[in-house]
């Protein structure tokens, strides 16, 4: 066992915390935050597992994948935020309706 596994497990925890918040929260900005935390968890796990090469140099392929992922995540976040603002402009709030109370 080495320190990289700490980070891999932390990645699993971040993903789970994010997924829970994504489902529980009804405010869209909070859902976007939760998605970003989930993404960070996946990236952390990928890079932590890339460190298991047994040498001092980690596997560069997952590193490249994570850099690609970070850029795609920021693009998706920007689009999601604009969609949220449009919804807010159209309906007056950025919170999803509560099905059980309506």
């Amino acid at each position: 066992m080495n320190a990289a596994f700490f980070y891999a497990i932390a990645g699993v925890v971040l993903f789970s915390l994010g997924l829970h918040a994504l489902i529980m929260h009804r405010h869209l900005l909070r859902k976007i935050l939760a998605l970003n935390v989930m993404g960070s968890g996946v990236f952390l796990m990928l890079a932590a597992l890339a460190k298991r090469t047994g040498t001092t140099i980690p596997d560069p392929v997952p590193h490249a994948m994570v850099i690609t992922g970070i850029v795609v995540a920021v693009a998706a976040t920007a689009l999601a935020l604009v969609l949220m603002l449009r919804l807010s402009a159209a309906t007056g709030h950025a919170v999803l309706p509560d099905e059980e109370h309506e």
Partner: protein
Amino acid sequence: MATLTTVGLIIDALLALGLMGLAWRVLANPDLFKAIVLFIAFGLVMALSWVRLEAPDIALAEAAIGAGLTGALLLGAFAKLRNAQTVAAVETSGTAHGTAHGIRSIALLIFILLLATGLGYVVWSLPAEDIGLSDAVAAHLDTSGVSNPVTAVLLNFRGYDTLLEMMVLLLALLGVWSLGDTAVHRESAPDPVLDTLSRTLTPLLILVAAYLLWAGAHAPGGAFQAGAVLAAAGVLLLLTGWRLPAALAAQPLRLVLVAGPAIFLALAVVTLLMEGRLLQFPPAWAGRLILVIETAATISIGVTLVALFRGAPPADEDRQ
């Protein structure tokens, strides 16, 4: 050496715990503004973790994009949301609390716990050593034209991914532009501190971007990190009230936006015709081709990210 390893382990444990604690605070904080600020702090701790994981390329990308630009985007959206609504409406967290949701939230909690346990078990039971693809990358690094393995993977071995990623960025911007203007225009004179700071920082940021672009061939850095630093300069300028001159807003801006993906795509077609495979660079030319793609990509990525932050297409502003 033994004490150094112990200190390293303690730092790793603290960073991992810090990440989990910060993520919890981000997601559970009742104050939305605090949650966003904590998310930026979370991104910076992530950047430190990347350094500990010996991934300096990702650390640079995370600090500039993950923490910096995403934070700016979130704060910008929060400000627009607050301008459009009362504070109380923004703050409504919308957490499904209450007895009516009791059974559902318990079921969800059990599901998440099972998922986390399963994922954790899978990660834990993976072999402690796995060489992955690093041997394959090391074997072909000489023919890639660069000596930084991450840049070699991004621009040469898996250039296809990077090409598609540039397209995703462009698509996201098209999506944002097609949704129209969501900005609540509130032009105000820039703060004198911000004004002075941006005057000093903007040339410096452009210099850092150029360095990162050049260094990417043999050291941590590359097109994405350089593009993100360039975008940071652009965002700073936007915050000080600077706007793109109208003469540059229409055609020239769009040309710069597509230059990166277009040059990348053109090279993909040329290599397909000359070498028989998409993005298969001849080793003698690979270094120069990668530099050309990276330079165009850096400028396009930087400008696209600034445009994503701005939201509305510049042409729309003229009409108002």
